[in-house]
């Protein structure tokens, strides 16, 4: 007889790691699967200011990677089994759930979907071809390539403005390109951006095309959202290139579950105990339909989900 876990968690972001911690403490036989980096989106975030208990302040702002490293270690302390693999297919009907991966098939009585989200692309011509050649969604990965050069940050939310501030460590000048005439980021972040002499703003503007010269980003077309007028912004002649960092929100990683679990606009619907429409299938974190997607709410979801799994297994509701 093949092994059947109590719980398989798909995704080791804050939701999956918090669920792993709680499941491990409850001695649930748990497997946590991650295809890439623990933490997902938050692992590549330069600074975490708003996780309660996280260190923050001048000179002590914690990075996402540092926060996640502690969560990973804490999860491991409670004996959660780990697997580095990409899930290719799931079968979630019936009492025994199947999770197919590149490393084989795994079974469990309960599955927690914590696959999170990925950066939303601009969706304009040239973007795909120039990804990694001037276009980036990861400031901590690629910021240093633009040392002394110009950088454009697309977006006006918390992430966009925070990463723009981070990029001023490298870039000569950072221009925030936003489709409205005011930022959406919280006030304290806005104040830091407005006080930073390296940061400039291009209001009421959207990028409609990215242009490469010999395979490297060298120009872009922006459209004024008020007048509809388009203009082309060229790289400084001496530089010959610039960076475009895109932070215009996220899209849920829902594809694996599209056929099985109820969703609204690709976000999974759950009750307040993180149960989906399928018995034994739970969802937590950014993949859920909910009003606030933050590390703190992802952790909360994960904890609630793990405790509900324990409760449902103990009561005989599932398994």
């Amino acid at each position, binding site marked *: 007889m093949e092994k059947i876990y109590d719980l398989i968690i798909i995704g080791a972001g804050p939701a999956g790691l918090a669920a792993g911690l709680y499941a491990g403490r409850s001695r649930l036989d748990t497997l946590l699967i991650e*295809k*890439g*980096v*623990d*933490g997902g989106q938050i*692992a*590549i975030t330069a600074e975490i200011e708003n996780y309660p208990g996280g260190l923050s302040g001048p000179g002590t702002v914690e990075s996402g*990677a540092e926060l996640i490293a502690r969560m990973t270690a804490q999860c491991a302390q409670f004996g959660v089994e780990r697997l*580095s693999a*990409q899930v290719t297919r799931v079968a979630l009907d019936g009492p025994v759930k199947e999770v197919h991966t*590149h490393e084989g098939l795994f079974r469990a009585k309960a599955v927690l979907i914590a696959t999170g989200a*990925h950066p939303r692309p601009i969706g304009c011509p040239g973007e795909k071809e120039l*990804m*990694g*050649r*001037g*276009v*980036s969604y*990861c400031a*901590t*990965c*690629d910021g*240093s*390539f633009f*040392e002394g050069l110009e950088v454009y940050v697309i977006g006006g939310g918390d992430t966009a403005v925070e990463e723009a501030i981070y990029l001023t460590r490298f870039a000569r000048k950072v221009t925030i390109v936003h489709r409205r005439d005011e930022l959406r980021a919280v006030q304290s972040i806005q104040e830091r951006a407005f006080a930073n002499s390296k940061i400039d703003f291009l209001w009421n503007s959207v990028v409609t095309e990215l242009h490469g010269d010999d*395979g*490297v*980003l060298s120009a872009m077309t922006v459209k004024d959202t008020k007048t509809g007028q388009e203009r082309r912004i060229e790289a400084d002649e001496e530089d010959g*290139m610039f*960076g475009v960092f895109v932070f215009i929100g996220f899209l849920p990683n829902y594809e694996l579950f599209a056929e099985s679990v109820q969703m609204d606009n690709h976000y999974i619907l759950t009750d307040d105990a993180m149960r989906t429409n399928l018995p034994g299938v739970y969802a937590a974190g950014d993949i859920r339909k909910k009003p606030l997607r933050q590390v703190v709410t992802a952790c909360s979801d994960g904890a609630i989900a793990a405790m509900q799994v324990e409760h449902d297994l103990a009561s005989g509701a599932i398994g």
Partner: protein
Amino acid sequence: MFELDKDNFESEVLQADGPVLVDFYGNGCVPCEALKPHILRLEETYGDRIRFTGLNTSTARRLAISQKILGLPVIAIYEGGQKVKELIKEEATPQAVEDMLKAYCGL
């Protein structure tokens, strides 16, 4: 894995006799760190067909840009002084790198 730098890239990669895999990474690049153990694992299988090397672009920025590397991680295969295949950023999953190596080695 052989560690490259800006001084030996020319001789070890561009002038190399056989094919060379280059793992372009950088300081503070979390996805690069996550990918590295998978590349080391693949070296055990494919290392006798392709030479595995790594370049820390944080100490070789100009060189990286000259190779059109402006985003990390990138796993590239060079042959005869040319970059013949590459997987950039999100494309560079362990599975995709193995598939690229298999296809390249005709396996």
